[in-house]
């Protein structure tokens, strides 16, 4: 019997490729200048889910993402790589969420999905690097968690066996299902897009996206329901509004500072043999090296 797996994925600004125009003159982040990508470790998580799908026939992989409308890109990317379906959780009520309010909203959406054996997420997202949402979703759902995963060896007879990668070491653990698992970047990279799946899903859209489109594609979902990406708002999940968005976030940002370096008296050394030699002699003389 197959498994029902939910993969949590996030669309993030690509903070690793920050160009010169990434910061505005007033010191705030210019999000428009940063490409939005599928959070790298969530791709590692997706691969682990797809491997379980390959191994256990009848397994389905559902992507769940929370974000603005354009985060539907993450769902499409997952479909191109082998996921079965995906849900976009999107609402203004979620704006300003810290990790706890985010985890609460996601856990409410998972409760609505209701049937699942395994939730797999990336360890952390590159825009915040907190690694908190996985464990917090587990706690909110009352499920066991295994973080820092590298390989899910098996998921059968009601339990998973997996390898964790910790500081300079590894651990093999067993955990009963359902469970929440997070995956490190040290895990196998995600398989590329599959050309057939790209053909199949390239017109997959949310209702909102279809409404903004030329009419050509509007009726596609009538005979191809898999092209509909469900869009859930706060009205589609059962939640306590106080626990969402800003009001559900115990942490507040008091201050954001653009990075300004303290200028230090630095000496410029010409990259020629003579000056390099002088520098080396100086470092040896003051016992920095040698």
């Amino acid at each position, binding site marked *: 019997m197959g498994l029902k797996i939910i993969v949590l994925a996030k669309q993030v*600004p690509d*903070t*690793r490729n*920050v160009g010169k125009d990434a910061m505005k003159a007033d010191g705030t*982040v210019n999000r428009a200048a940063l490409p939005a990508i599928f959070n*790298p470790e969530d791709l590692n998580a997706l691969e682990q889910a797809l491997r379980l799908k390959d191994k256990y026939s009848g397994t389905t992989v559902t992507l769940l993402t929370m974000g603005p409308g354009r985060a539907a890109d993450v769902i499409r990317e997952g479909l191109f790589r082998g996921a079965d379906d995906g849900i976009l959780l999107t609402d203004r009520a979620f704006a300003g969420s*810290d*990790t*706890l309010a985010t985890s609460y909203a996601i856990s409410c959406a998972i409760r609505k999905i209701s049937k699942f054996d395994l939730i797999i997420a990336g360890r952390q997202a590159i*825009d*915040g690097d*907190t690694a*908190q*949402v996985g*464990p*917090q979703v*587990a*706690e909110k759902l009352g499920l*066991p*968690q*295994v*973080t*820092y995963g590298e390989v899910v060896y098996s998921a059968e007879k009601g339990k998973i*066996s997996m390898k*964790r990668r*910790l*500081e*300079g*070491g590894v*651990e*093999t*653990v067993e*955990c009963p299902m359902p469970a929440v698992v997070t995956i490190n*970047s040290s895990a196998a990279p995600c398989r590329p897009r599959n050309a057939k799946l790209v053909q199949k899903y390239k017109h997959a859209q949310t209702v909102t996206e279809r409404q903004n489109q030329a009419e050509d594609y509007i009726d596609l979902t009538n005979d191809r329901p898999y092209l509909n990406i469900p869009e859930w708002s706060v009205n589609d999940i059962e939640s306590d509004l106080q626990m969402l968005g800003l009001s559900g976030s*115990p*942490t*507040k*940002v*008091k201050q*954001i*500072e*653009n*990075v300004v*370096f*303290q*200028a*230090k008296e*630095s*000496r*410029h*050394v010409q*990259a020629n043999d003579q000056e*390099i*030699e002088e*520098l*080396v*002699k100086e470092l*040896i003389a003051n016992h*920095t090296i*040698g």
Partner: protein
Amino acid sequence: MNLKMDNIFVICEIEDGKVADVSLELLTKGRSLANQLNCKLEALALGHNIKGIEEQIFPYGADVVHVGDDKRLEPFTTMPFTSIIVELFKNEKPQIALLGATTMGRDLGPRVSSALQSGLTADCTALEIGDHEDKRAKKTYKNLLYQIRPAFGGNIVATIINPDCRPQMATVREGVMKKEMFSKTHKGQLKTVDVGSILKPEDTVVKVIERHIEKNRINIKNSSIIISGGYGMGSKENFSVLYELAEVLGGEVGASRAAVDAGFAEHDRQVGQTGVTVRPKLYIACGISGQIQHTAGMEESAMVIAINNDPGAPINKIADYVLTGEVMDIIPRLIKSYKKNTK
């Protein structure tokens, strides 16, 4: 006022009967915060066969050490630790709780914070006490914990506060705070945690089958000379000149996050907010632009040499010496010159 409440807690991490450095660093920081806030510093140590562990903790200034000793607490698994901490915090109501940003602290912290509905800030690079005025609610908060951390890939530094929820929780990486003994002879109160009455069978469903710890595979933290490469090195192959220089000088090779992400170097070599924090005698930054997420992990180096082909690279502003040019051209000449002058 109940004197039991409003204290600072440090969750200690124990490996092979030894309190981890990161926990001692947090105790040092916790002690100074406790002095500032005029409250007590308490520590929690959980494990198995850890009798006498408090002797390692008291010298770092703890007023109270809570010890829970039970075979279900070794090796570490998330849920039994969470249950004990949540129970303890419900009774003790600390105002601040600090954990190491280790794989344990980053696994445990969020689960505890979710159970207590309290805020947690990950990987702080500074912790300070300060006030906050909420202009909209017309409310002033005194003595909050400012949790300061780079965010957004290091392009901004954010100060995070938890105005209303307690405890204010934060994780800090090893090496970020300084470890300093408070007093060799300092003694506090020892309290035993009644583990048996707290743990339930469902807390122990995750089983560690095998544990294979490779100690200090690569440890750049203790090296007095670090040669670091960034994305500007261009390739993994080009890193070989850095290894060569490191070998000649008796140092270690470090890397920026971008270089690690690009596969140029192992993660254990990463210097910066999400890597290790280093304070070597000499830090040579090669092909590193110098985002704060990197400089946060090396700015306390005694001497910094920046080698970069971009004369405007931010790293140059914190460097003692700036060499503008091609790394692949300059490093071999440094090696040659060093060999010549140390013969």
